[in-house]
């Protein structure tokens, strides 16, 4: 097997499965076939990725020769389609294919109750297309190709978030996800144009060369170099995809999609694409210190900002979503301070434990029929395996040694401390908040007594509806507004403590990297750091190595434990009541967090309704009324007036016309005679 063939297998297998499902399966009744095709494709891609890994390990500088094909040729513009395979690519490939395979296996059971919809093929076709696009994005050797697949993953995200498009909230969430990321993509597109105009190439490695960066540094406008503008634009696209402040608003809403989708797209892969892009282009960002500062600041701020909202969310998937935003903020922070290895180390670890957490949340929701943690509790007894897996992943997320999250988070903290005390402070507070919301989530979900699941939620919703005077007639609709992944049948309450094997096997598989992937890069053995520092990275960024700081590690562990202890006091021992804690602070911090700092309000009311609705749309209405209508109506009036004047000539008198003709001929003849 050659490298070229393996690269095509990685990218092609999911694509073939997409085409096979779209053209080869019936929309309903063949869900097993669609699911197996997809899982098989992932397996093929996984093995091919493994082969590529062995090749990269053997290659000098951990880089393989790029494979490139001519794609489009328009005049002097040459577009290429190519695969750049180095250590970063293979790492991402393995993460994507591993998580994708496990998610597909999990989906086969999880989505089985979706039989009423008869749209298995739609689900798996989208999943295949998504994975193919994501792998194409990772493999791309030029930015134009990245952009192409970038938009494709965005499209798949839209389709999958809106999988239950009959539900208005899901349709709205899909639209929001698409539009908000599109705002970032405008920046990315402009950056591509700036880069191409100045350097004449999209190729990533050519952009890293001296000629390219010199050309970009020479010109500029509005007081910044073209390089700064281009990198800022790339970061804007990345911030949209990776849900960084202020474009983070779409990710919590995207939880309307099926949980396996959230696990794959909104935890492990697509949202990491932004981090991947910035990391991939870091040798270019390196020349723009102003952009690097922006990346680090936005990353650090997003980390603490999102974590704070995760403290009060009552929907388990939204807690995860805020956690994901926060962790992506960590990665951006690391990239912003130049800690290339630390960022990707964290990306790798996060992909595994967050996918596990999402799948665990899916299992919990599968059992209770709701995602509202107020109606969970006591699930440790009925879902023991899920509980242990989620517990391990949560502690890994909280950064408890020796789990994987600890090692990567510690490296990011170290890099932040070196860069600026402020960034370090934000990161450290985030450690505390993370530990707190993770433990809160565990207590609310698994500890105590079962609070009734979807049935109780329906009752509560019905009561609230009646109480608010909206009438008892709506009470029955409570179910529709209830859980996010409700499966129609109320199988949550009655059945006993059996867990479905296919639902927890992926969790058990994912727990292995959640625990062990941290060992890839420890003070004792820094294999991943050496592996990721390719020849290109070494010559552009230089080797970025931080000595392990035991004091820092102890501090971060202590902070995480403090967060755990506080959460235990509030939700476990109940020594401090959550309500009293809120009341003590006057209640307003809770309200601010509950309202997500008013960001949704800001966007939906101020920008969409006021700026667009009142301002732009009203302005356009005036323009339409007084300019467009005036032109159209004016043309009409002129024609009418002219017609009114000329109609008197048309008398219908045949002989009148004849007379006019004769007179005309006479006049013409007379003129000709006079002139000649």
């Amino acid at each position: 097997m050659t490298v070229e063939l393996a690269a095509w297998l990685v990218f092609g297998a999911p694509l073939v499965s997409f085409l096979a499902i779209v053209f080869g399966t019936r929309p309903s009744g063949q869900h097993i076939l669609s699911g197996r095709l997809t899982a098989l494709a992932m397996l093929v891609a996984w093995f091919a990725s493994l082969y590529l890994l062995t090749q990269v390990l053997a290659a000098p500088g951990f880089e393989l020769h790029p494979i490139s094909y001519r794609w489009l040729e328009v005049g002097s513009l040459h577009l290429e389609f190519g695969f750049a395979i180095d250590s970063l690519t293979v790492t991402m490939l393995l993460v994507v294919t591993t998580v994708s395979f496990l998610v597909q296996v999990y989906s086969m059971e999880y989505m089985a109750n979706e039989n009423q919809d008869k749209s298995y093929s739609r689900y798996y076709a989208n999943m295949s297309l998504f994975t193919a696009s994501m792998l194409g994005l990772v493999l791309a050797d030029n930015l134009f190709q990245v952009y192409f697949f970038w938009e494709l993953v965005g499209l798949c995200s839209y389709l999958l978030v809106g999988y239950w498009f009959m539900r208005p909230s899901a349709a709205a969430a899909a639209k929001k996800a698409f539009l908000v990321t599109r705002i970032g993509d405008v920046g990315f597109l402009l950056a591509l144009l700036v880069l191409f105009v100045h350097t004449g190439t999209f190729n990533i490695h050519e952009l890293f060369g001296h000629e390219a960066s010199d050309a970009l540094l020479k010109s500029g406008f509005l007081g910044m170099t073209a390089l700064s503008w281009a990198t800022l634009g790339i970061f804007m696209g990345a911030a949209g995809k990776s849900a960084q402040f202020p474009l983070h608003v779409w990710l919590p809403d995207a939880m309307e999609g099926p949980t396996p989708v959230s696990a794959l797209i909104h935890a492990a892969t697509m949202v990491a694409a932004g981090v991947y892009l910035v990391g991939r282009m870091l040798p270019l960002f390196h020349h723009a210190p102003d952009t690097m500062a922006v990346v680090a600041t936005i990353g650090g701020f997003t980390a603490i900002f999102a974590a704070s909202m995760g403290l009060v969310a009552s929907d388990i998937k939204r807690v995860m979503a805020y956690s994901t935003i926060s962790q992506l903020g960590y990665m951006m922070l690391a990239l912003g301070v130049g800690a290339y290895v630390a960022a990707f180390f964290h990306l790798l670890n996060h992909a595994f434990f967050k996918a596990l957490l999402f799948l665990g949340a899916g299992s919990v929701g599968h059992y209770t029929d709701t995602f509202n943690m107020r109606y969970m509790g006591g699930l440790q007894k009925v879902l023991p395996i899920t509980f242990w897996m989620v517990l391990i992943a949560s502690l890994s997320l909280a950064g408890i040694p020796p789990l994987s999250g600890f090692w990567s988070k510690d490296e990011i903290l170290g890099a932040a401390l070196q860069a600026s005390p402020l960034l370090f402070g934000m990161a450290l507070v985030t450690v505390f908040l993370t530990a707190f919301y993770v433990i809160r989530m565990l207590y609310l979900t698994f500890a105590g007594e079962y609070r009734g699941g979807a049935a109780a939620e329906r009752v509560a919703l019905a009561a609230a509806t009646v109480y608010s005077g909206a009438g008892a007639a709506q009470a029955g609709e409570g179910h529709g507004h209830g859980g996010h992944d409700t499966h129609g049948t109320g199988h949550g309450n009655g059945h006993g403590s059996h867990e479905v094997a296919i639902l927890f096997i992926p969790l058990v598989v994912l727990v292995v990297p959640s625990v062990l992937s941290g060992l890839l890069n420890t003070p004792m053995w820094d294999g991943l750091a050496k592996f990721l520092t390719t020849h290109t990275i070494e010559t552009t960024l230089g080797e970025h190595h931080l000595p392990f700081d035991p004091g820092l590690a102890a501090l971060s562990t202590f902070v995480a434990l403090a967060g755990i202890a506080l959460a235990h006091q509030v939700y476990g021992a109940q020594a401090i009541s959550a309500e009293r804690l809120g009341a003590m602070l006057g209640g307003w911090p809770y309200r601010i967090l509950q309202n997500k700092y008013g960001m949704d309000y800001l966007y939906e009311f101020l920008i969409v309704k006021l700026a667009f609705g009142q301002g732009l749309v009203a302005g356009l209405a005036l323009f339409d009324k007084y300019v467009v209508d005036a032109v159209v109506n004016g043309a009409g009036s002129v024609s009418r007036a002219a017609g009114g004047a000329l109609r008197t000539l048309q008398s219908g008198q045949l002989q009148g016309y004849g007379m006019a003709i004769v007179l005309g001929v006479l006049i013409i003849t007379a003129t000709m005679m006079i002139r000649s």
Partner: protein
Amino acid sequence: MIEIGLSHYMVLSAVLFSIGLYGVLSRRNAVGVLMSVELLLNSVNIALIAIGRYVGGAGATGQVFALFVITVAAAEASVALALLIAIYRDRGAVDVESATALQG
């Protein structure tokens, strides 16, 4: 004895044309108008043949042209008479001045 030349034919043609034109513009009866049109056409025929005979070169271009005009005139007359019959059936008269349905 005066030699009959081109100018005599042209004068005859012009007189016939003027009579026809006057008829077309002044007759109220549509049949009269139609007959006047025939006069116009025939005056042109005379002019064509005379010019063909006196001015034109070899061949009989003028005569051929006149034959065409006669053919077209026959067709025109048949179409026009059909229209007149239709108008007569509709209104009981073929008064040109009252046929003003197409006025603006």
